[in-house]
């Protein structure tokens, strides 16, 4: 079972200050409004053109810098469902999982994808297809997959407290 996605391709070391500028962290307080500033200082076209189902394909160390979770939720509300990078900042990786945005570590993919390309992801098999080319990744361990399946940490807690 594969799903198709339009890709936005970026480079190495894309940090949270350009994904969601710190000056907005206490100014923009409604998550729905975060999306308007997503990637503002890196790619101004993203916020206006992103659509539901899009994915980010990036190089090394995606999401380094501040712990600010808006750097994930801004992309999520812009429509991003997965981020595929050569590697992630650990805190950013956790923020992805906890917000139900699938983080995939797949070092080879970045060089095969340009912005606008359509890629296909088979989550069960841990495979990504770009045209004829096939890339593999290790799916998350069961404990992490359970959080993703729930839609993030908050829905999981809601199930626990509200039954």
């Amino acid at each position, binding site marked *: 079972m594969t799903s198709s996605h339009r890709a936005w391709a970026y480079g190495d070391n894309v940090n949270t200050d350009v994904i969601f500028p710190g000056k907005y962290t206490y100014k923009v307080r409604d998550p729905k409004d975060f999306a308007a500033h997503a990637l503002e200082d890196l790619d101004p076209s993203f916020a206006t053109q992103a659509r539901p189902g899009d994915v980010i394909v990036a190089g090394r160390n995606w999401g380094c810098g501040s712990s600010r979770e808006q750097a994930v939720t801004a992309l999520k509300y812009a429509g991003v469902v997965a981020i595929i990078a050569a590697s992630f900042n650990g805190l950013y990786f956790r923020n992805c999982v906890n917000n139900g945005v699938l983080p995939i570590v797949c070092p080879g993919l970045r060089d095969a994808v340009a912005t606008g390309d359509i890629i296909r992801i088979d989550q069960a098999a841990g495979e990504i297809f770009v045209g004829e080319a096939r890339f593999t990744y290790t799916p998350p361990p069961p404990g992490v997959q359970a959080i993703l399946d729930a839609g993030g940490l908050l829905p999981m807690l809601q199930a626990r*407290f509200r039954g």
Partner: protein
Amino acid sequence: MTGYTFAEKALARAAGVASARAGDLLDVRPDVIFSHDNTAAIRKTFLQTGAQRILHPERVCITLDHAVPAPTTDHALNHAEIRAWVAEQGIRHFFEVGRGICHQVISEEALVLPGEVIFGSDSHTPHFGWMGAFGMGVGRTEMAALWAVGELWLRVPESMRVTLTGALSPGVTTKDVSLHLIGAHGIDGGEYRSVEFAGDALDALSIDERSVLPNMMAEFGAMSAYMPPNQRVFDYLEAKRQRNYTPLYPDADAEYAEDIHIDIGSLRPVVARPHQPDNVAPAGDLYGEVVQQAFLGTCTNGKYEDLVAAARVLKGRRVSIRTLVIPSSAEALKRAAADGTLSILLEAGATIGTPGCGPCMGNHMGVPAPGEATISSANRNFKGRMGTSDASIYLANPYVVAASAITGRITDPGEFLS
């Protein structure tokens, strides 16, 4: 069977399991959790979970530091929501506007202790490695979960060992050691890892010098960082600690993913140029680069000894550019006021701000104009960090910041220290 790293030991203890290895997924119950101005946003998420009371309010610390005193009505409203929440939930460890930056204040108050685990909704939480505690930054949703259930999933990180030998030369600090390490191995050189420092050089370091190293490991991609606690650390914590503790040390045969050795005696003052902390060059090579503002402060280098370092350079001299000094805590400010350090800085033409984070992340109190460059003792110089993407940030130690404040150019402090 090899021995255990500090991270493996500390996380096993906090998860209540006999032992753990890198790669294991654990539910970890931290001894202390903290947040700052982001507390009101965490509260909103917390209330959405359906939980009503924080499970262990005695483990919670809250410090107002990111935008203090409130620069706008929005910030004031944010602070007001936090104060109401603190009262409602009975949180005792609450620190008001002006007390200082979370990492520094929690250290001064000995609220976390060696061998313990502390999670904060702030990326510089590896800071607490200075005392041999496992500190890790978490997101806001994670902090809401910690309030609700007191535990959090975690993958035990691999560890790397950084062994420091030798003694620092005049004008060189642990900031230079940090920037050298990050410059040599990249801002993802410590990614997902616990960076465990070792070596005889650590014994000579003061408390203020120690904390710079683990704090800066956030810019190395590290999950956490560790320094073996010594008698100086135990003495520092003794007056205020409210419980007993057991320091933890890695086993001699622990397995490290990477081993790095640095002779710190060979280092010169360095600067991280725009727009990444690993863009490192000797300060002496950058005299052609002009700056319009100097900023001495932050959780990295706004401590008492950092103010003293700047005063050594500025004594009897005048700054030529606007120079902001924002102590990392009220304690640092009081000590600097009591021994004349503050007077030296003021005589030199610097101005003093309320203890807190200052303009570090572009909130207020010294944000640059587009096109301007700042020489800063902070930790992060990403594009847009201080509020506008058209400004440049150079990171350096307090001596370099002070020397550059005099000349208006990136300056090696050597000539001002003889």
